[in-house]
């Protein structure tokens, strides 16, 4: 039982990280129907910026907590600027282009960002400074750390804030209107360009937060860390119904749980045939099965194809 509980904790924490990243995907997709493949790279940049800034501040003698906060703010600012720049330079000119064009641009940007990061930060794995005090807890035989608690809380808080933003503020209303029909929204006086840019900037800020969380949790970073994470988060967003905020959150947590429980138990259930070497495909199998019965994800609205 303690092992089961431990796996639930493992999955929940991993899932919260996926959810944070998935929110960034879903924000952009919900508004303009674009898979921003470079979002994983935004997360990576967030982590690396924090390492540089916080590392530097700790070196000059600033208290760790303060340096960490400064690092987080620096990462958020950097990523916001990056998100804004991405939209402005790469995606905005393509708004009327064929549907696959921005996808290729996104892939191109992802390659560019990875290699830029490699040139700036090098090829080696970097260690992330421990920003939170090491505290271990034990509950019913399961171990967890302060970092894990913080990750789950931050993830939930971000979600709450985002829901408030989208459903209770004017900007949120403009976002929802744009997502429904950009042309009509602009006739109603919504500045489409600004709304879309806002979605990118907010999504990237969330990416930065996710990046710092990932860094604090695993204490390592690498210029290629964003790719796989982005892919998993994207899967989570689709699982929940892409474009739907609550769906992304739920999809993320679900994905984390599926992976942990899958790796922990499927092997024994299948007599060792499907062991943890298949950990990465449990998520995809669940995704395919869900989409077979609910073609637009768990919470997705049934919409026509955005051709």
């Amino acid at each position, binding site marked *: 039982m303690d092992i089961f509980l431990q796996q639930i904790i493992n999955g929940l924490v991993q899932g919260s990280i996926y959810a944070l990243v998935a929110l960034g995907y879903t924000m952009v997709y919900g508004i303009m129907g674009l898979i921003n493949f470079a979002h994983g790279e935004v997360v990576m940049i967030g982590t690396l910026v924090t390492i540089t800034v916080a590392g530097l501040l700790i070196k000059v003698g600033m208290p760790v907590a303060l340096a960490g906060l400064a690092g987080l703010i620096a990462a958020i600012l950097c990523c916001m600027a990056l998100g804004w720049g991405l939209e402005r330079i790469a995606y905005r000119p*393509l708004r*009327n282009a064929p549907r*696959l064009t921005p996808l290729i641009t996104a892939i*191109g940007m992802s390659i*560019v960002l*990875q290699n830029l990061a490699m*040139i700036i930060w090098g090829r080696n794995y970097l260690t992330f400074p421990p920003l939170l005090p090491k505290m271990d807890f034990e509950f019913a035989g399961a171990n967890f750390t302060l970092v894990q608690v913080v990750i789950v809380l931050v993830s939930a808080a971000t979600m709450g804030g985002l829901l408030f933003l989208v459903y209770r503020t004017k900007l949120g209303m403009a976002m929802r209107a744009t997502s429904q029909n950009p042309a009509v929204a602009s006739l109603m006086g919504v500045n489409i360009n600004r709304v879309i840019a806002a979605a990118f900037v907010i999504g990237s800020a969330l990416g930065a937060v996710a990046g710092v969380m990932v860094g604090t949790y695993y204490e390592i970073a690498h210029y290629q860390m964003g790719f796989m994470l982005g892919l998993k988060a994207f899967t989570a967003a689709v699982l929940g119904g*892409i474009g739907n905020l609550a769906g992304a959150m739920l999809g993320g947590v679900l994905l984390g749980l599926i992976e942990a429980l899958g790796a922990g138990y499927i092997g024994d259930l299948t007599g060792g045939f499907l062991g943890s070497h298949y950990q990465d*495909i449990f998520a*995809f199998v669940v995704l395919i099965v869900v989409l077979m019965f609910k073609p637009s994800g768990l919470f997705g609205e049934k919409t026509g194809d955005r051709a």
Partner: protein
Amino acid sequence: MSKWLNPRSAFGIALIAAALIALPFVAAMGGQAWVRILNFAILYVFLALGLNIVVGFAGLLDLGYIAFYAVGAYTYALLASPHFGLHWPFWTILPIGAVIACFFGVLLGSPTLKLRGDYLAIVTLGFGEIVRIFMNNLNAPVNITNGPQGITLIDPVAIGGFKFSGTTQILGYSLSGPQKYYFLLVALAILVIIINLRLQNSRIGRAWQAIREDEIAAKAVGINTRNLKLLAFAMGASFGGVAGGVFSAMQGFVSPESFSLIESIMILAMVVLGGMGHIPGVILGAVLLSILPEVLRYGVGPLQMAVFGKMLIDPESLRMLIFGLALVLVMRFKPAGLWPSPERKRELQGDA
């Protein structure tokens, strides 16, 4: 058909043919390594044309195309290597590979018929990963694929006693292994191009186009969208299977790491960058994207040495950086690809 008999086109075709025949010998002046690079370029042309059927003609976004290539490659590897002690001739294996890949195409296609656009993209992506991970792990409990170790000592293509590996003397000229493969690949590529051209202008091709533009309307005019979508998956997959078989034979070694997601993405980039649905455009895209990194490889390092006198930036990272930038810039200034089909171009200009 009269188009082909036009003397001016005939002249053009003759020129192309002469250039194609001369190319491996010209490239060989720079070393056989360049012939090998050319061969990979043609292999990518092959793959891009296969994917073009799915993405370009039928408008189904497939991010797991490499899976079919992998299936073809492993089919060849298993049936013509000491792994199972089988050494079947290549002309029986290539069709088998195509059929098995085709089966996988239908397997992928059938559960995803209802899905649209981006949902389809992520499911196909997942499918590609599933195939790769299975290949990486099917060495236990029964050793089928030999897992991450891959399969070595795969037989080269041979027709009768004529082997495609090693150098042979023909009419006083010596023909190296890569050069022989070049001609095999060109022959296969021409076959694929002809099939593609014929498909495009057929009833099936027009039906695919209708599905691509508006699926509901296509259904309304009596097109069996289900069967036609499956057909697109199946045909695209078979091409991938054949390409995989040739890759296996040429390389003599396959392992799952050759079939990663990034390869699927590259092939899609070739199709879109060249001009989706337009056969010459797709060929151009495939040749450019497969040769460009190689040219950059030989160009970037020496150029830095010449300009700055030392290596400022690791050539490898700069190479990929330029590659990524090229993708972004082409899409920015040529959103329909470098060489789009005339209709597509017109539509776009109408939009703006």
